[in-house]
């Protein structure tokens, strides 16, 4: 590679720190913001780079290398060790000894619920293969123990750890403890923003719940997945015929057999269910529930998308079927365990047979179990930085409403031991205004100590230590000249493929002399920002490879808008080597754990540095091999040009370039849009109060309000508005719309949901992104030719992953 070596004799070039560890140590040592800014200035401008990248040799500080490309190594930051699992699970005393100043409440909880806590920790250890917790994990777990013990629901914990450090363990352990340990168990919900991530987490939850059930005290633990089912392909996936594979459950948790679990028809207590079963060991995963089964069975830990939660709580037409998930008292069928809300039984006293309520289950049992209240006690949010803009505003209103709904339905207060308040936990938001975002979403305030950062501000270096000379991932930056960035991207990918798998496959033999894991860079991923580039690149790579080599290359493009049944399927095929090159966009960057992804080519710098960190962070997971990320810059893009000019300064302080995202809990437009959802949930909650339930129709609603309209309207305004400056405007809005709704209800004398969910009604929004915008249909007149091109040999059409469409969910 062309380069110039410049060695200074008798002096040292005045270079600011360029390597990650050196730069980070320097910045950490500067407590004062002004000093930090001064240092940043020096780092940016001490070396003006134009046309080349100047790197001071780490080995010989008096030597500078001038190159046309840039190489930057981000070292691994290893989490500081926490307590041994064995020490934590020996006895209550041994666990309490590891807790920082345990309160009496904590002592009581640990002592009284010891077997459950012990089982949860051991299950996490066996499911995720660790024997010692990291310090940050233990801090988050013990914080949660304290909150469960005291019944405190206001504190929000923010688990701040780099990608792949082990945040999932925290979420799952805390979810299990929060759901299973209180005197009256509840449920825990883990919210992930994308379907891909939810499916991935569901597989991990399956392994965790399997491990929980091997312990006597948690032998009845259950899990579930709550996702939108509007996509017909996904509905088909959820209802397979007997013997068909059920990919979404992953491998068998009992024997780890790689073959997908297959569908079997449930009998006995599983009557009416389709269960995944292992063909090797016969294990049946009857303790995990898919979307249609979550409400009937009310599992302990649920993975959910925010949109589906919104739908179930505020949009769903038949509210009676859903309210058990939100704290309404239920009774279970003595045979199959399906739950029926007690208010339904009160309103229809002769409907005690299970199949009268769960009509498709065909269960002959009766709903005579004891009263059970299972409110959501804990919600964990990962990839929280993806929830910004109006989505953050809608989510803030919805979460406030959800807590109110739980109070209405259970008639218990939010706080206290058996309170129905929801405690929130989030993972790091890789944005600049993290606290502002979390305050907006949860309506908890840092100023009163309700937001607890783990590790605390300024202590990150005690929790994560740079391991030298390790490399987490290496970023190679090149600036194409005399060719377009796209052509350079294609050439780079094809070249990498040829050296890895083609006739000139020489990379692995060369790597073999340096590492025993020379195959770790085989999986090749091309990252694109624009969706419309995906289909084009997919075609270009196929054509250009065929032109030069004569063979067909298997290239797929994965975006969040791909058919829902295909996303995880494609990813699995790619990892198993059935796809030669995978192209992907943002969907791949949100928390998906892709073991074996170490080789990535990116077309241009991402539009945000948050996205860059998230995407590059997909590589180098696990401790075995480093990731390799090749960024092909786009010379005319100012952002790319900036990175090239300030290469080391930017990459050694990427977090300094994180986005500041718009996040507010209140917006007058969103308040108007969300009003219908909030008022519907509130009125349903009022009507279904367990002491005196009423059907939520014109008469029932009027009766339930009992003349307290003004109080309810005030409460609704509070749910919709968290900003005192805008409260008066919101109050006006609520008054007007509430009156309109009541008038409509009285005039039509119908059920609340019949009015609000009517096709012509616009009372409700169905997504936290708001109402869908206009879309324009694209048709092709040559439909016969199009069909032939999609199925060249006359068979089924090829998949459509490359299609560019806005339709989702």
């Amino acid at each position: 590679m062309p380069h110039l070596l410049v060695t200074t004799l008798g002096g040292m070039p005045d270079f600011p720190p360029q390597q990650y560890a050196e730069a980070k140590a320097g910045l950490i040592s500067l407590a004062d913001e002004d000093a930090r800014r001064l240092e940043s200035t020096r780092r940016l401008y001490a070396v003006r780079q134009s046309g080349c990248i100047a790197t001071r040799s780490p080995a010989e500080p008096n030597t500078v290398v001038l190159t046309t490309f840039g190489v930057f190594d981000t070292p691994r930051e290893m989490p500081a060790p926490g307590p041994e699992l064995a020490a934590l699970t020996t006895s209550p005393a041994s666990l309490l000894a590891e807790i920082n100043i345990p309160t009496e409440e904590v002592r009581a909880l640990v002592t009284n619920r010891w077997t459950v806590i012990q089982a949860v920790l051991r299950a996490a250890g066996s499911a995720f293969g660790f024997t010692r917790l990291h310090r940050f994990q233990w801090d988050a777990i013990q914080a949660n123990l304290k909150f469960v013990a005291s019944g405190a629901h206001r504190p929000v914990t923010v688990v701040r750890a780099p990608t792949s450090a082990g945040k999932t363990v925290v979420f799952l352990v805390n979810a299990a403890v929060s759901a299973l340990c209180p005197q009256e168990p509840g449920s825990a919900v883990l919210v992930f923003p994308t379907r891909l991530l939810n499916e991935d987490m569901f597989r991990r939850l399956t392994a965790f719940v399997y491990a929980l059930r091997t312990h006597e005290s948690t032998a009845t633990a259950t899990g579930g997945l709550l996702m939108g089912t509007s996509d017909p392909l996904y509905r088909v996936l959820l209802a397979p015929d007997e013997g068909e594979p059920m990919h979404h459950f992953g491998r068998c948790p009992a024997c780890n057999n790689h073959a997908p679990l297959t569908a079997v028809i449930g009998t006995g207590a599983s009557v009416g269910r389709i269960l995944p079963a292992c063909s090797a060991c016969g294990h049946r995963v009857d303790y995990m529930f898919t979307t249609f089964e979550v409400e009937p069975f009310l599992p302990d830990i649920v993975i959910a998308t925010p949109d589906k939660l919104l739908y179930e709580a505020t949009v769903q037409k038949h509210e009676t079927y859903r309210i058990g998930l939100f704290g309404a008292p239920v009774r279970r069928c003595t045979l199959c365990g399906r739950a029926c809300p007690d208010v339904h039984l009160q309103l229809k006293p002769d409907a005690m047979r299970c199949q009268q309520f769960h009509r498709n289950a065909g269960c002959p049992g009766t709903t005579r179990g004891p009263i059970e209240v299972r409110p959501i006690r804990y919600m964990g949010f990962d990839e929280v930085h993806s929830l910004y803009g109006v989505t953050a505003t809608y989510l803030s209103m919805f979460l406030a409403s959800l807590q109110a709904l739980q109070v209405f339905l259970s008639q218990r207060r939010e706080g206290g031991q058996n309170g129905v308040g929801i405690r929130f936990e989030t993972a790091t938001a890789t944005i600049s205004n993290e606290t502002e975002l979390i305050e907006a979403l949860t309506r908890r305030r840092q100023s009163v100590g309700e937001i607890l950062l783990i590790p605390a501000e300024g202590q990150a270096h005690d929790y994560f230590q740079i391991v030298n000379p390790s490399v987490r991932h290496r970023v190679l930056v090149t600036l194409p000249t005399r060719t377009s960035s796209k052509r350079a991207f294609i050439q780079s990918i094809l070249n990498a493929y040829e050296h890895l798998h083609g006739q000139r496959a020489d990379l692995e033999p060369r790597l073999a002399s340096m590492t025993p894991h020379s195959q770790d860079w085989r999986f090749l991923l091309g990252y694109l920002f624009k969706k419309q580039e995906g289909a084009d690149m997919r075609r270009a790579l196929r054509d250009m490879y065929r032109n030069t080599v004569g063979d067909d290359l298997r290239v797929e493009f994965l975006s969040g808008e791909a058919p829902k049944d295909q996303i995880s399927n494609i990813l699995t095929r790619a990892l198993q080597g059935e796809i030669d090159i995978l192209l992907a966009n943002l969907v791949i960057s949100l928390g998906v754990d892709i073991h074996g992804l170490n080789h990535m080519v990116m077309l241009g710098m991402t539009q945000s540095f948050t996205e860059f960190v998230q995407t590059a962070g997909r590589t180098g997971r696990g401790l075995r091999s480093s990731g390799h990320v090749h960024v092909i810059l786009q010379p005319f893009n100012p952002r790319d040009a900036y990175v090239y000019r300030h290469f080391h300064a930017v990459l050694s302080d990427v977090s300094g370039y994180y986005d500041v995202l718009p996040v507010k809990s209140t917006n007058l437009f969103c308040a108007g849009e969300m009003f219908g959802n909030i008022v519907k949930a509130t009125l349903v909650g009022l009507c279904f109060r367990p002491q005196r339930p009423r059907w939520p129709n014109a008469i029932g609603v009027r009766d339930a309000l009992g003349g307290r309209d003004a109080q309810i309207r005030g409460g609704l305004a509070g749910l919709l508005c968290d900003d005192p400056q805008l409260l008066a405007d919101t109050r006006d809005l609520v008054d007007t719309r509430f009156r309109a709704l009541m008038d409509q209800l009285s005039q039509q004398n119908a059920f609340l949901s019949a009015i609000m969910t009517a096709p012509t009604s616009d009372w409700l929004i169905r997504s936290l992104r708001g109402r869908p915008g206009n879309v324009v249909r694209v048709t092709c007149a040559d439909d016969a030719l199009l069909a032939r091109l999609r199925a060249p040999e006359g068979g089924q059409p090829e998949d459509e992953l490359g299609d560019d469409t806005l339709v989702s969910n």
Partner: protein
Amino acid sequence: MSRPQSISPLQVLYQAFPDAVRFVHGQITRVRTIVSSRGDREDPLSGLVRRSLARRILVELQRRYQHDTDLAARRVLRRNAAGSSAAVGALPQPEPDFVLPDGFDAFLENPSAESTGGTDNSTPSQPQLPAEGDISLIEVDEDAIVRTRVFPRTVHCQRCGHFFLLDPSNVPSTLGCPCCRQSMLRVEPIIFVCGRCGDMRELVPPLERRGDMRRPGMAEHALGAATVCPDCGRGHVHLEKHGTNQVAQWEWRCTARCGYQIVLQQRCLRCALPSAGDAQGSVIFMNAVPASAPNALQSLVHQEMYVNNRPVDPVTLHAAAREAVTRRMSDAFLVDIADREQAPADSLDNEALATLRNACIARAFLVGGVSAVTVAYGYKPGNAAAHPQSRVAPDERLATLFGDPEGYSRFRAFSHSTIGSALVLQFDPVRVLERLGLDSTSTLEDVLAQESASISSREVRDLLTTEGQSIRAYRALHAVEHALLNAAMRQIGSETLGARLFPATATVVLFEKSSVGRGGVIQLVNGGAGLVQLVEAARDLTLGCAQGCADGCPTCAYVARDQYCVHPLDELGAAWLPANILLSRRGAAAILSEEYTS
């Protein structure tokens, strides 16, 4: 199971306009037309849009007229020269740079059926400003449908080189190669595109020789079956790729090996200018590109804002705001610091007014009913169409204007409109110049005119590294616009706002990109308190950078998404500028804060 294909209206205007190439179900297609069940727009605003478009269409027609006039004059000269040569038996004069082959004129004089513009012999007529009725305007919304056809239809067998065009009306039962029967036919996505007129042609083997040239192949000759070799008539024509992606090295070859062996090269006959007299010939080598190359064709898009059925300018906006205040409309807001006769908004105290004054703000007001209209009315060849041996300057590129397929109107345009409120911030131009340390004897308009000349004459590559005093006023105002937009979006927690800068009058308009009721600029201003908060936040964003940058970086001055940055290209005389270029945070700080010293 096929899912419906759907895209956003703006995607239609920029990427799925007529003749653009689009993926449908993973296959490449070309847009034939866009229809809407609503038919032509007839609302009052559409008349304004048509009038505005007419001027732009005229500019393109005049460019085409110059080309056609030149072509007609050359033809006359060549005919005259041919006549006199024949008369006196003189040999043709050699051309210094480019000599048209003998057979070339035959094609020019007999334009092909596919060649539609500028090749007839009639003298072009001086274009006139189109009348409103000449322009059909279709709103692109959920009632619109984009209709496409498979393009290109060319298929190729990698194994034997068999090549032909699939006939959509007679689709084969499989795509197995009918020649070697051992491989599958694949769509050959390479097409030719002209860098001057944007003509796109599928690959078709050339036909019989005429003089030094061969007659260009027509799609019909290869539709449904391979082209029979025009030389020997025994074999048929294959496409030989020689294992390379370099199209210049690909060849047409006869299967009978009769000597028919031709490199793939195509000259554009649609816009060719023959040599005549002293004028050199000008024939464009069409560039071979994948049909789906995103910048092969560039949509001609015009964006304009309207209020009260008038194009937005600071005067119109101010009048609309005053009217709203006079009529005591709810949420009306106007503060006029420059004009002391105007009572400022009641809610602003002296401290707040001082803050605004310190930020050089002369007026701030809310305007309702602001329409933002984006219209696509044609396309030009983009950079990908440029052949390395046939460079075409941007101002020589000829537009293809959309027409009405049914012939009811001469031109057709496609629009997407949004309506909402806007917050207008007018800065005092004189104080802006003072703060920036620029010649205060000039007007801001003059300074911007000079800067525009500088911008339009420089390469983007140079503009990327612009710093210091260069193009200071535009960079500073542009950074003010970014700071206000960033601060506004954070203040209302939504990305629904857009910004437009009118640099010559130092006016920034923050407008709602979708219907957001009172949750947009009305909440932003919040009776005045929000406005002060906004200006302070924008000022704080410009006063310093957490990363300590010199004059603007991704942390402080850039907008988060490239599409939020829209340059006033007309005012700057530029064809294209990348997002987040030409920013001066320090200039913006100087405008927004009297105390700031760089």
